[in-house]
């Protein structure tokens, strides 16, 4: 597709072309520096490079084509929103990116500055009319996982159709029932929006499909357990990020093709970092595309990120929905019960996340953990206290980082990361 086609499409979508041009011009040099400069990248990353290279082009065009044929596009932000339901109604889920600094100042014209960057970034994209995915979508589905988002969705709903799912804060029986009800109502909302009935059969198929994506990502992460590691943390993060908005079947295919290559590399003992490079687990707030900041600093400092305990990481795919089929009600219950197992810091208590971190640290044979906190994200910041204690008890080195999307603190971060690596390097 040509640039002129893209421009015309963006115009039709009501994109603010001037701002959008600025964003589009900023991305390639950053991507080149952060991604394309890496050595011995897997060939399978070519697809993902292509997707990012045309980030607002071909995929949007695809979605628009579907929309023209009557398909509903549903935009989501959080891994609590069950893609299965959306797909079973023959609608298309797209995870929205909220990882760019570019839209933060725009959001700050309205939202309080001391709001987390993820919220500001996503809100700014809508407010500034720079995200063609939001513009293409027929519905944004939010959730009540944190107060900032909850209130942002209210304001967002003034300019776009928004539906908010209520995620409970505890994992008691009562909360589970509330959540099952929420998933059921969500099904009704999607059915109404699409005009398509969700049947047991369709839901079982969708469940299988989403599970296949999870399996593919599990396979990718499994490869990262090897030493030397066959893929950089940056590349793996990108794959996860792209899987949020790419076509599900294509994504599965591409991730599996990449994994074939990685497994071959492992068999040949080939890696992208020397086997003595410090292995790092990142745990904490999600990193939405194009937020590659922490990975980039760590990996240019000589470490390698081998796992993310995050919603752009293990929390997205580590549990499958049981594919036992059954009636529609039974399947919805199985889906709800799978989603409430996500160990997000919005829950209290959330001890399971601590267990996850310790388990992942062992499985990925990490030398240290970086706790990543978006500034003003209070749930993760407070939970970090417990993470710190649990790791101290096990003698696992931890660095706590609180940052946002801007580059102002890159120097300070680099110093802390250098010192952390000097500390754990043997």
């Amino acid at each position, binding site marked *: 597709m040509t640039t002129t086609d893209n421009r015309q499409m963006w115009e039709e979508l009501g994109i603010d072309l001037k701002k959008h041009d600025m964003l589009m011009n900023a991305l390639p040099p950053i991507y080149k520096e952060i991604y394309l400069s890496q050595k011995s990248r897997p060939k399978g990353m070519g697809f993902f490079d292509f997707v990012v290279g045309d980030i607002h082009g071909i995929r949007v065009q695809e979605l628009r084509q579907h929309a023209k044929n009557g398909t509903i596009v549903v935009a989501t932000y959080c891994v609590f929103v069950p893609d299965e339901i959306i797909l079973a109604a023959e609608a298309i889920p797209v995870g929205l990116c909220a990882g760019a600094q570019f839209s933060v100042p725009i959001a700050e014209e309205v939202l309080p500055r001391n709001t987390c960057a993820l919220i500001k970034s996503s809100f700014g994209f809508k407010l500034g009319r720079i995200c063609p995915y939001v513009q293409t979508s027929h519905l944004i589905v939010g959730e009540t996982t944190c107060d900032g988002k909850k209130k942002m969705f209210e304001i967002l709903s003034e300019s776009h159709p928004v539906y908010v799912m209520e995620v409970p804060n505890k994992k008691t029986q009562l909360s589970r029932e509330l959540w099952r009800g929420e998933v059921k109502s969500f099904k009704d909302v999607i059915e109404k929006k699409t005009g398509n009935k969700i049947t047991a059969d369709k839901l079982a198929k969708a469940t299988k499909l989403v599970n296949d994506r999870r399996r593919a990502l599990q396979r990718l992460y499994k490869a990262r357990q090897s030493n030397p590691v066959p893929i950089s943390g940056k590349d793996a993060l990108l794959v996860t990020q792209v899987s949020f908005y790419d076509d599900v079947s294509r994504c599965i295919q591409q991730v599996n093709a990449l994994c074939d290559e990685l497994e071959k590399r492992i068999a040949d003992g080939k890696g992208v970092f020397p086997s003595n490079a410090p292995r790092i687990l990142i745990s904490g707030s999600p990193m939405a595309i194009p937020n590659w900041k922490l990975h980039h600093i760590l990996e240019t400092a000589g470490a390698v990120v081998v796992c993310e305990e995050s919603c752009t990481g293990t929390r997205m795919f580590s549990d499958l929905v049981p594919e036992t089929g059954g009636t529609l009600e039974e399947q919805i219950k199985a889906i709800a019960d799978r989603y409430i197992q996500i160990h997000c810091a919005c829950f209290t208590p959330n001890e399971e996340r601590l267990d996850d971190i310790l388990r992942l640290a062992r499985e990925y044979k990490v030398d240290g953990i970086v706790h990543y906190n978006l*500034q003003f994200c209070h749930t993760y910041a407070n939970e970090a206290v417990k993470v710190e204690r649990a790791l101290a008890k096990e003698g696992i080195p931890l660095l706590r*980082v*609180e*940052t946002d999307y801007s580059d*102002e*603190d890159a*120097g*300070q971060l*680099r*110093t*802390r990361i*250098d*010192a*952390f690596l*000097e*500390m754990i390097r043997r």
Partner: protein
Amino acid sequence: MISLGLDVGSRTIVLVAMDEGIADSVILETGVNPLRRCQELLAERSYQKLVITGYGRHLVSSALGGETVSEIRSYAVGAKYLYPDCCTVIDVGGQDCKVTLLSAEGEMLKFEMNDRCAAGSGKFLEVMSKTLEVDIGGFSDLALGASRVVHINSLCTVFAESEVVSLISRGVESSAIAMALHEAIAARITSMVRRIGARDRVVFAGGAALNKCLCRLVSEKLDIEITVPPEPQIVGALGAALIAKAGAHFQNAVIEETKPRAFK
């Protein structure tokens, strides 16, 4: 053999040259072109090894060569060399504040460093002394002359500045305001020290350690005696020079140097 340690900080550039012991040291203002400063500094000398630390380390090493080491580690090594029983290092520099806990053998066990903002750094003191129209050298004496107590609540440089302005407009004398500012930054530093669980001996280094009032407050708040080296600003460059001297396996080598008996 001459080994050089270069500390490229946000305010000053410090060079330490070592042969058997410290041969020479130079302190310059960083200015607007730190790379050129360093080039000039190095051009005058012959040396065998160079290690660069400080926030400008990557910039300078990619242009002029030399290994890099973080300031956190170089300060730890420098302090341990000067005081072999040192277990805690406080380093307050131009843009940040760091506290590092060391094992008896000199290994870094833990460190704390301020996030993004300049609160609790030399920059904070500098901005505030400007607001009060005293030079940074006289700021400490001004505070020590305070005869009453006022409080500054904000640690954010921007908000603290507006608090200062409102205190001035209420007629509060500048010595009391200066003291309040010192109190605020000392509180910030001590909370970091407490987080890390300081152990004797505590060495306070970096440019801000020249500020007597700050040293006194930190010591009082922690209820612990703190040691300020005679030239607190050169400790980072000294550590870098020691690392240069020890060569590739600096971690062990430097420890041996500082703790000949305790190691292994």
